[in-house]
């Protein structure tokens, strides 16, 4: 499946400044892996040492968090838009 991946501004350093990247995959996990193989520097920001997706990275298919779908196994269809979104925190 050919999908479009939307890259947050914070990660565009690793995608040659691109906002949108095309990727292939039958599932979200596959598409993100394929994407990370093309842009290897981004890997350590997405996955921890054990290869598990980092807790503060959220992935949305359309407007739905994959946590509320089937996680990385969420199936994709042609033309889907997949978005990487961080959570933001701070204080005083």
């Amino acid at each position, binding site marked *: 499946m050919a999908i479009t991946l939307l890259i947050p501004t914070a990660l565009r350093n690793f995608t040659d400044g691109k906002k949108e990247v095309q990727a292939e995959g039958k599932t979200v996990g596959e598409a993100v892996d394929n994407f990370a193989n093309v842009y290897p520097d981004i890997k350590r920001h997405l996955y921890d040492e054990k290869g598990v997706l980092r807790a503060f990275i959220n992935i949305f298919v359309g*407007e739905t968090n994959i946590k509320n779908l089937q996680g990385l196994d969420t199936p994709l269809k042609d033309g889907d838009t997949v978005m990487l979104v961080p959570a*933001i925190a701070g204080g005083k």
Partner: protein
Amino acid sequence: MGSNCHDKTRANDHPPTGWRAGDNNKNNKNKDKGKDKVKVGWVLKISLETIEEIKNEAARAYPYECCGALIGVLDGDVRDVKEILPIGNERKGEAQRRRFLITAEELAKVEIKIAKKGLDILGFYHSHPDHPSRPSKYDEDFALPFYSYAIISVEKGKPTELTSWVLDENRIFISEELRS
């Protein structure tokens, strides 16, 4: 926002651990105390009107922390803020006095909304009620690379100084030049 004051802070009401960018060189954590490093070349272009809007948000939220996104266009090293987008502080109850959280769900909505206008998220702002407008250890620990983190101090309900900060390659906040 943040009126359910009797809500106890839940144990799981914590944001995910920070984004450990780069090699996370811990040896470089000893900051020059009292002296802010200024990132040469990085500029946050923000109008006085927009700063005023942030101040109004901060005053309204006092004694709680407000938060929101800095929206605009990236022009080389200049981040040109065109507008702000206030976002509800998702920390619970009294925790909002000293913490803010923007969930990925809220941010996803923002991304979808601004993409249509050809704008980007350049960073975030939040307030420090009765606390200087300098990043806390907590701010630094949870900050993501690239983004500008603007901080507005609110003294006894009155907004004072706005500053802005960006992480350097060692995950240390560097003060960013503000230009109107």
